């Protein structure tokens, strides 16, 4: 049974946002992803975002493009974007376009959050 596509943001320690993406996220979910994440980009107290891919089964090129946009926008504000829990499929998609060259990947969300404090 396919996992229902779902996107939600969670504020951790009042400092990091974890973006949980679940199921197949493609261009149809892009407006939801934008509406959730865009306001969060403006928050000054936030040090960075972690995209939790542990329940993610597929993303298309539009979502990859939006992740690149998040990376650029956050980097301009001296904030970080990290990716956590990507399975082989997601890892392949992100690696194929070269995002692994600019974004750090972590096996779990906890490890990604810990890296903020190092």
């Amino acid at each position: 049974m396919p996992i229902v596509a779902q996107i939600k943001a969670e504020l951790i320690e009042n400092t990091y946002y974890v973006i949980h993406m679940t199921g197949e996220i493609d261009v149809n979910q892009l407006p939801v992803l934008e509406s959730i994440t865009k306001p969060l980009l403006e928050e000054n107290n936030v040090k960075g975002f972690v995209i939790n891919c542990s329940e993610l089964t597929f993303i298309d090129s539009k979502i990859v493009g939006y992740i690149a946009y998040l990376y650029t926008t956050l980097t301009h504000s001296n904030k970080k974007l990290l990716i956590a829990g990507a399975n082989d499929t997601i890892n392949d998609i992100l690696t194929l376009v070269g995002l692994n060259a600019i974004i750090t990947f972590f096996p779990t969300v906890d490890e990604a959050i810990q890296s903020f404090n190092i």
Partner: protein
Amino acid sequence: MKFIRENLINKAFLLFTVLVAAVVTVGIVLNRMQVSSISLNLFLAVSVLVLAFILIVFILDVIIPLNRVIKQVTNLLTGKNYKKVNPITIDEIGVMTHFFNEITTDLEKISYDIKERRRMSSELDIASKIQQDVLPKEAPETPGLDIVAKTRSAAEVGGDTFDFLMSPDKNQLFVYIGDVTGHGVPAGLIMMMVDTLVTAMVSQGVSNGRDLIVNTNNLLTPRISSRLFMTSVMLRWDKQAQKMYYTGAGHEHILVYRTKTEIVETIRSGGIALGMIPNVAQIVQEKEIPLEIGDTIVLYSDGITEAKDKIGNMYELDKLTASLKRHGYRPSAESIFDNLTKDFSNFVGEYVQVDDITMIVIKYLGKDSATSKVKLEVSVDESQAERKSKLWGWS
């Protein structure tokens, strides 16, 4: 009073009541004055006055407003110039006048939308034509290589591209495929920018794939949103040395069918997509693809691997690879291409194309083989109606 003003029947009833009241009042007055008879002239004069009053009220309140709106409705229906009518009553005629005004406002809006759509459609056709003109119609003769390249857009303007460019000294042939995020006009504009930049740089003597990718990225990134990017593979064929090199920019895998072993190698293109970050010099590399006679290279866009069948299964890399493994032995690039696309068409069946699709097949025939013309096809010259119903199939 509002009760009377907003209904024609109530108005008629009021006027009739006025008429009856006038007759009754005159009768009562005459009776009290003990007038047993009045002159015929006086009776007629009073009657005419009362009827004239009723008639004037009827003309002012019903006939004139009705005529004003009927005249404009007639103009509208017969295609003449019409204008909006200011409603002066709040009865059924006022409602009809208001309705007429609303209808004409909507008609004007619809008419504007139709004109605007025609204009946009015409401009899209022009953009599509410009894009066709940019894509190669023929390529330089390439001794040793047999090449087939085809692209099909999902919309009037596509985001996939390919090109064949010969260096000014005629020693290097550059073959590249590009795929901009999404499809349609935004993707098409970026594709045009990249095509122009690459063509200009090759003509100016940039002689390796890495420099082409790095320089294109340097010029492209500040000019586009980071949400849009183009993945690409740049092949460089050294004619004299008969060697093939590739530089990746975050594109799909490069497939190589090895004739000797009958296996398909999948090579990660590497690099990072064009337009994502300002400087890619540290990420991008040019590497060799060693080729033996009979080996075949396949470049493709994700419109192929992400294509779905009617129940939503994706074609994916493994099916394309398996197809190449079955058909890679064939003697010409065209026969390999035809069979790859036949397998692809059989898989996707009736599924309607939602992304641009492009494939390049290059077979290495050896230096002494007969020179063959590159076969190119750009399927972007169909009318919009045809394209909408177009199935994925290429064969």
